């Protein structure tokens, strides 16, 4: 079974005075098919945690293991391939490429390995269908609403069957109704794909819809209803 394991993860940023500690010995694990939401105030280190798990940043201490692999031991080329194969991202900004249609945007991750295969094209169509965007397949981003663009971004995150989907404030730029739809879609598609999903958000409504919810406070991860500074599983 695929498993994400985060152990004693700490992150400090150097400053002229003293190092700024953003994360303190964060630890948790997640199995395939499970999802987790992380909430916390601005600047608490949510995005930093997500970026480290997504291998976009490196920890000062501690380990991350996904599918039995410590990504930080990989050389840059292997790391890129690892990220491409195992992880899907959804950001607050959709970052769709304006020159491409919806389906082409979904297929962009495939280009990291060469050209998109027919199976991948079929899968992109399926994902868009599941996102309710069959009619929008050939539309470009500026021809779509904000919610539709974010749904395309969700489909793009899943195109290569990642074992882990990381969502960084995925509904931050959306109105409440649309945000709800995106949240539903994210969880639904994660369940369908049996992937792990970690979502950091300000939205308690969204966070509560996840199987597991945690809160990050002053760099420490705790259960959402806990106030103690304990690590939690």
């Amino acid at each position, binding site marked *: 079974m695929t498993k994400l394991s985060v152990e004693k993860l700490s992150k400090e940023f150097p400053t002229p005075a003293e190092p700024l500690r953003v994360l303190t010995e964060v630890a948790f694990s997640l199995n395939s098919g499970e999802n987790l939401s992380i909430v916390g105030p601005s600047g608490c280190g949510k995005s930093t945690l997500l970026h480290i798990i997504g291998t976009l940043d490196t920890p000062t201490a501690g380990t991350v293991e996904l599918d039995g692999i410590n990504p930080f031991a990989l050389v840059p080329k292997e790391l*890129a391939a690892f990220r491409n194969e195992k992880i899907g991202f959804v950001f607050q900004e959709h970052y769709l490429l304006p020159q491409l249609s919806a389906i082409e945007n979904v297929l962009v991750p495939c280009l990291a390995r060469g050209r998109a295969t027919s199976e991948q094209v079929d899968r992109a169509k399926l994902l868009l269908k599941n996102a309710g965007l069959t009619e929008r397949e050939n539309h470009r981003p500026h021809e779509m609403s904000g919610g539709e663009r974010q749904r395309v971004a969700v489909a793009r995150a899943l195109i290569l069957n990642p074992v882990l989907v990381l969502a960084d404030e995925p509904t931050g730029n959306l109105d409440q109704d649309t945000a709800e739809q995106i949240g539903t879609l994210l969880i639904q598609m994660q369940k369908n794909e049996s992937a792990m999903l970690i979502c950091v958000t300000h939205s308690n409504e969204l966070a509560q819809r996840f199987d597991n919810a945690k809160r990050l406070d002053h760099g420490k991860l705790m259960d959402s209803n806990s106030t103690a500074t304990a690590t939690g599983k």
Partner: protein
Amino acid sequence: MNLTKIATQSFIHFWRSNLTIALGVAAATAVLTGALIVGDSMRGSLKQLTLDRLADVDEVLLAQSYFREQLAAEIAATEAFQKNYDLAVPAIMLPNSSAELGDGDDKVQAVAVSIFGCHEDFWKLDATRHLETPKIDEDEIVINRTLADSLGIGSIDENKPIEIGVRLPLQGRVPSESALGKKEELAEFIGELKVVAIIDDHGLGRLSMHPSQLPPRNAYLSLAQLQEVLYANQTENKSDSQQVNAVFISSKNSQNPPTPEISASLAKSIKPSLGDFDLRIQQVTQKFENETIFDYFSVSSDQMIMSDPMAEVIQSALPKAQPVMTYLANRMSVVSENNKRRPIPFSMITAIDFNDDFAPVSAVSGKPIQPIRENEIVLNSWTAEKLDAKIGDEIEVIYFEPETTDGDEVETSIKLKLVDIAKIEPPKEEISDDQPTPFSAPPTLANDPFLTPYVPGLTDAESVDQWDLPFETPGIEKEDDLYWKSYRTTPKAFVCLATGRKHWASRFGSTTSFRVPKEGRDESTIRKIVSNAVSNAEHSLGFELIAIKRQGLKASSGTTPFDVLFLSLSMFVIVAALILVSILFRLSLQQRANQIGILAAVGISDGLITKIWTLEMVLVSALGAVLGVALGVGYAALMILGLRTWWVGAISTPFIELHLGWLSLLIGAVAGTIVCLMTITFSVWRTRKQSIRSLLSGKLETDPTAVRQTGNRSKIIAIAMFILAVVLAGVATQLGGESQAGAFLGGGFFMLAAMLVWVWNQFGHKKTNTNHQHGLNKFAMQALARNPLRSVLTIGLVAAASFLIIAISAFRLSPSVTGTAGFQWVATTEQPIFEDLNNTDVQEKLFGVELEKSSLVLPMRLKSGQDASCNNPYQSTQPRVLGMSKKFVEYFDQDDVQKFSWASKAAKSDLEKQNPWRLLESTDGDTIPVVIDKNTAWYSLKVYTVGSQFDVDFDSGESAKFKVVGFLNNSILQGSLMISEKHFVKLFPQASGYRYFLMNLDDANDARDSDLDLFKQQLSDTGLDLKSSEKLLAGFLSVQNTYLSTFQLLGALGLLLGTFGLAAVQTRSVLERKQELALMRAMGFDRDRLGTFVLIETCLLLLGGLLIGMIAAAFVTLPHWLLTRLSFPWLELLGMFAAILLVGLITAWLSARWISKLPILSALRN
């Protein structure tokens, strides 16, 4: 804290990006400064060459005939000289000479040799160069390096002395083309001259009267030896054998030539003697016992006939002097069937107006003869008796026309009514030159042999059989010889002056002497009057003081302003550098956009923000300009290296050297700073349109997500342009010359535009893509389509640059039949040829055989002058003049002959339209119609339109106003003014014979030597120089072709610089999309893959631009190349584009590499 401090700190803090911009500024400044330095270098080199060519010679006194060597000392003794001048050295200068080494088949001949007869003082004129003074004794010669090379002489070996011969031009005193002038033996050969030194082509070693970057062929002989040769052949009439034809004068300041005022003062103080002007004054007295029959002063010229300006000066100085025109009649006879008397051969007839001073007594009435009217004649009593002529008889006078045609005397006649008979008294014994003629009865006024001027070989002959005339003298009998012995040149008939001048005046003059009444004056008084008159005459009368150094330095400003030329040629590089500056600055602005946003957000006004940026950029530009000036010197050095090597065709010889002018460096630096600053300020100014929010987020553009769409309209435009391109190309095939190249270029331009519009259409066209299995290439293409305007502009710039670079090849010129009019050879001779070389009798005489029927020689007269073709970078003020012979003009009346190509002409009549050379024969007041090759007119003479008028003052004293009646296109006749023979002989009466020829010579005769060989063998003594007209034309055209190559290479350099700009554009484009690219990294694109993606984008732009440019250029050049069989610089262009591609790829790779290293997180967080 103040604005300057912010700007200074920003300048230091962002040193990397500022340095990049400064390098862009440096590139622009370098090119600007470099071009100015090239101009400085050209002018400086030409000036240096002038100073070198003339050594210490500042002025030269030249004369049309020989004068006393002593005149130099007289000049040196004048006050005007002693105040400002240093040396006055007499010499003989013979520019149209030739030199020979060896003989027979081994003979090597060098033509266009200038021979200087000089003594030791001559070499003092080169004092500043410390030239070792060569000592030249009799039968020794010194030559310069260029002449040595032409003769194949490497060095001198004392053990193996080298001897050469020289052929000097002899100028007949009596003009060659007058009936009595000599047409043969006009050169003297001096052989077995031992070469004692070979001097370098510097200083006096390259002394020449004409500014040219090419060293002349010079030879130096002892003055005494030359004087000896000339005295035996040409100056024997002079009282003093030490004659020269030039005085070289140096001033006290060798670096700065004397001012025009100083020169004028010296010119005024020069007082040649009457003998120097070839004037002869003698008292003519005839007495009988105590009675004076006549006693007057005769003023005549040793040239037999006085030039009209000289006659006018004398006439105005001596108003009562009677002009006399005496001519030689071949025969005189009575027109009557009943009169069977023998015609009187070879008689002098004097044209003079009878008046109170001169009225010979009538043999009929015994009274003074009344003035003769036109068409009337008075015979002397001896002649009347021999002809048995009666008053009222018609007398036929047969004579040679005063000017020869094709070297032949042409006989013509007039019939005049005999109105009286002048009595002459026979002398007691034969006339003697030394003794007064004794008479037994009083002689008459008609008994005056001095009415005939001195003609060497004629008037000094003791008897008729000693006459030395250039023609046969048939029909002379004993009684004629007796007349000669008794009366010598006493005229046998008189006509009035009007009749004489009507028939016997010529371009050489219309007066043979003046009969000056004594009026109580002695000879010295008359001499003084005449001497003052000729010395102070406004007209130079043959003596010219030429301010040669001042003229040379003025001409050093050059035909072509090389700074402007190289600025134009470097325009691609300059524009590319400015675009690069703009791009680099925008890139820097992009990276620092949030700073502007912050400043704006805190309430700093746009003006103040612009000020802060401008201050910082002043520092950046100044840094760039300083770097640029240094680089500019290097760029100029590179250009000069180019001109000395690859582009030497543009300047003929590698004479140019680097000359730095501080003003150019300053102008370059300031201009570079200002231009770059303007570019930068404009970019800052444009940010005012940006919202503070977008600036704060680091964005400079408006919404980049809005992809523009294009419709079918652009497709229609593309198709229309394509059709237009094809139509223009079709039209071009029907045209010729530059209009053909222009039409092809226009076609190519439309082809280029059509392709760019098509690309625009493809970028903007929204297509439903059903095949999504595409790779990075398509992905990159889609990325480019995101901002079609920028992409198409980028492609367009690369395409336009490469199009121009290649297509300009269509303007390369190759020799064509319209440039040579189908003639194979262009020949010049040092000695004039008078005969018609197409005449079979002349051919028999000259070559021993008749030439082939197909051989043709069209002769032209030549007035030597400056080469005004584009081969000579000096500004030409006195170009060479060609007098197009009647034969030449008439030749082009024929329909079936190859014609020259005319760029434009003022033809009105059908004949002029059919043969524009006929325009030369028109008369328009004092202006002389002239045809010029367009290149010569435009670039050297700065004459741009038909109908333009311009004045030329020649050093030989003539002045003329020319009016352009036509321009030739790229012809072999470049570098000359072409006027009709009629105008030529009037303007240059002294330039005799033909020295310039267009020829077709048949060389297919197997039975004997070919016509070409015959010419080479038989005319070598004339200094014949035969040039293949095709090669000559190719030489002219190579200048234009070289400039095109220069333009192409500098264009390629600009494009190369443009590839850096392209990379910068791509970097900027990537920065705008850095979040998307960071996302791709997040999705698992490794650095290489992302780099490849960016690289493909850049390559698509670069290759797309190059490909479109090349296709459009091929559309222009291929048909042009196929039609004109031009040699196309495939290799050069291939090399240039390979270099551009390589540099472009490397730059794109470096840029992609940089981009791929962008931090993902910061991009995503932004």
